[in-house]
């Protein structure tokens, strides 16, 4: 009995080993290889503007993975906008969204398991990733498209050492102040054109018995980021884009008097007990109010203005009419002086590839075209998306606020600057800057705040 059993075990072991070896040998991927066959879009009318994809040949049956921080419900519009790519090339896109994207992506890259393509929302993180040597330079088709459809500044945000790695994808405009058009009309208030007008309006509103401003900077572990946007937006207006660039690259120290002046200007609103925090509480309550809820008191008439990006449109309760003649809308955060044009603060994502497979390059190319930008606009029925792509037709954007963002992004007079904290090293841009701005709101002095951030710069 015993011998029979051991024999059986031996046979089993051998079988398992054999199967393992056989399977392991055929587990090699069949990716790679140049273009082959004619592309499936050859005689389809909807593909005629995408002829550059013909270079990649027939990609039927191939798959390309996309890893992003864009999760439900916004992901559906992304997925829908890839259908044209599948129609024209035959390749499928596998979409994976994660809220832990920023923390997970470097881990995956380090572990040798990077996605094919990642939509990186921070130029700072892109730099870190490129430094690992795992990011693949953008192919020439993408580079040409970026030259054609994007401004030089956007190309620079996706480049490291003058080499283009990642083409811009979506964009957002942050220099907005949300308000209630009907509330303004009822009280005879006018949308302010200058910073001083805005402060005068704030005083008028404060005198009428409500606190004019409301804000919330609580955002879980990213608590503080809306306050960093405030500082960036104001710095662009008080010191100008050149100082802003030097500040981001740390050629101007974080505790420079010019930065302190801008922060005090922010404090004139955010730390002014007469101005904040409408419908919520005192100045300190800004720190514990979720950013999603920061502007909602406007709907109850308990607050008049809320500075937040265009994407805040998604946070108004269902049924709110977001339009110039509706329940809420936004105006451009006014300038402090005439010296620096019309500065615009914003953000965006960048298409970063970790593979040079044909199918990956094909998707990179598709995403950098004007065709995709318009396709995405049409596939976003709820609004809340815009791109800096110059080929994007503003009338394809659905919501009035997106159209306004689109106009601002394409306005030749606008001086666009990318969100500074997203470009700084992680120690500052994703940690001390957030933390110290939160501490500043809860009572820390301007000087201490800026000194602390300066000392944390690596």
């Amino acid at each position, binding site marked *: 009995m015993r011998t029979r059993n*051991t024999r059986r*075990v*031996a046979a*089993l*072991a*051998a079988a*398992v*080993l054999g*199967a*393992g070896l056989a*399977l*392991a040998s055929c*587990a090699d*991927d069949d990716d790679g290889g140049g273009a082959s066959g004619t592309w499936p879009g050859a005689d389809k009318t909807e593909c005629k503007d995408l002829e550059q994809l013909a270079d990649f040949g027939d990609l039927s049956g191939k*798959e390309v993975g996309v890893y992003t921080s864009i999760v439900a419900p916004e992901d559906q519009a992304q997925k829908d906008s890839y259908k044209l790519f599948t129609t024209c090339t035959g390749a499928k896109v*596998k979409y994976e969204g994660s809220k832990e994207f*920023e*923390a997970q992506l*470097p*881990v995956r890259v380090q572990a040798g*398991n990077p996605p094919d393509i990642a939509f990186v929302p921070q130029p700072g993180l892109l730099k*870190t990733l490129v430094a690992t040597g795992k990011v693949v330079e953008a192919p020439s088709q993408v580079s040409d498209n970026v030259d054609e459809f994007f401004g030089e500044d956007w190309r620079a945000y996706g480049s490291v050492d003058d080499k283009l790695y990642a083409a811009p994808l979506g964009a957002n405009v942050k220099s907005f102040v949300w308000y209630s058009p009907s509330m303004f009309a009822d009280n005879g208030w006018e949308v302010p054109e200058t910073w001083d007008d805005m402060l005068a309006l704030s005083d008028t509103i404060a005198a009428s018995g409500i606190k004019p401003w409301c804000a919330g900077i*609580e*955002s*879980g*572990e*990213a*608590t*503080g980021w809306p306050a960093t946007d405030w500082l960036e937006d104001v710095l662009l207006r008080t010191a100008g884009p050149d100082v802003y660039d030097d500040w981001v690259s740390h050629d101007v120290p974080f505790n420079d008097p010019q930065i302190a002046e801008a922060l005090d200007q922010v404090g004139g609103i955010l730390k002014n007990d007469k101005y904040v925090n409408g*419908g*919520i*509480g*005192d100045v*300190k*309550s800004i*720190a*514990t109010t979720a950013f999603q809820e920061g502007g909602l008191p406007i709907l109850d008439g*308990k607050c008049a203005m809320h500075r937040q990006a265009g994407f805040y449109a998604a946070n108004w309760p269902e049924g709110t009419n977001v339009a110039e003649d509706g329940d809420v809308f936004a105006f451009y955060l006014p300038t402090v002086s005439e010296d620096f044009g019309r500065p615009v603060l914003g953000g965006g994502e960048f298409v970063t590839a970790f593979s040079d497979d044909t199918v990956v390059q094909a998707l990179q190319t598709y995403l950098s075209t004007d065709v995709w930008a318009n396709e995405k606009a049409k596939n976003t029925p709820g609004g809340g998306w815009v791109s800096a792509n110059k080929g994007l037709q503003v009338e394809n954007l659905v919501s009035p606020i997106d159209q306004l963002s689109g106009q601002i992004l394409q306005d030749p007079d606008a001086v666009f600057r990318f969100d500074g904290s997203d470009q700084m*090293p*992680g*120690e500052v841009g*994703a*940690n001390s800057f957030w*933390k110290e701005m*939160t*501490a500043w709101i*809860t009572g820390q002095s301007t000087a201490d705040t800026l000194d602390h951030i300066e000392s944390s710069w*690596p």
Partner: protein
Amino acid sequence: MSAGEKFVQLVICVAVFFGVVALILLVTSRLRSRSGERIQFAAFVLPAVLLIAVGLLYPAISTIITSFKDNTQTEFVGLDNYHTVFTDSQQLKVLRNTALWVALVPTLSTFIGLVYAVLVDRARMEKFAKALVFLPMAISLVGASIIWKFVYAYKDNENDQIGLANQVLKSLGFDTYNFLLNEPWNNLFLIVIMIWVQAGFAMTLLSASIKAIPEDIVEAARLDGVSGLKMFRYITVPSIRPSLIVVLTTISITTLKAFDIVRTATGGNFDTSVLAYEFYVQSFRSNNAGLGAALAVLIFVLVLPIVVYNVRQLRKLGA
């Protein structure tokens, strides 16, 4: 590589591993001599040792080495990271908070659990009363934190409240209070969340061991005129001492690893960060792997004596 392919490879790897082990055992089972027994012994132990080495020892050693390197992991910086942990004002607050957590959570949850277990023991509705306290155990720490964040939600007196705690304060005529903001008290309000979850665990274990106290001991004590507090002090507590130690040490370790509550409720702001959360922030958000590793090593060093004590206690019981 897709998840499906990875899964297939995983299954293949496990199968190959089993195959190899089976083969080794098969071969060594043929050995009959004294040295053969040693080889047999090695064949049984080696796979486990190997797995522990790959899964535990290697990461531990690599973490310790990382803790002596700078943020980009290129240069050795000696004890600089540890120096930061023990001198930087922010990090000192983290240490203070961790000490507060470790001092309060295990003692209070065990105390509350124990008192509750004694009080409801053999009472009417015992099962229902126990279920009430045990239920929070079934909620994840993140869920519990979100629930309590709503309880603590703050708006000033003039506005409608959405937070339960502040509505109670307002109804009683007090000013509303921003629970999560004012340091150091906000730490206590976070600790309350952990106690809320852990007291049920303590209560269940302790209640079971109270029920296991032999009836004759209780009876003998009663005949000697012991009752009430004295019964609790001289009979109940000494009889359940082993369970008490297990409960205390388990909760201590859980508390040292506390991460979810801080991350969800405050994001480590307002001076509420603790070691385990700070380790995560430094490693994965600030990209400062060196300092993160140093914090991880510190947690390891702090947990170690508790584990050693626990194991020794268990061994004493076994002997």
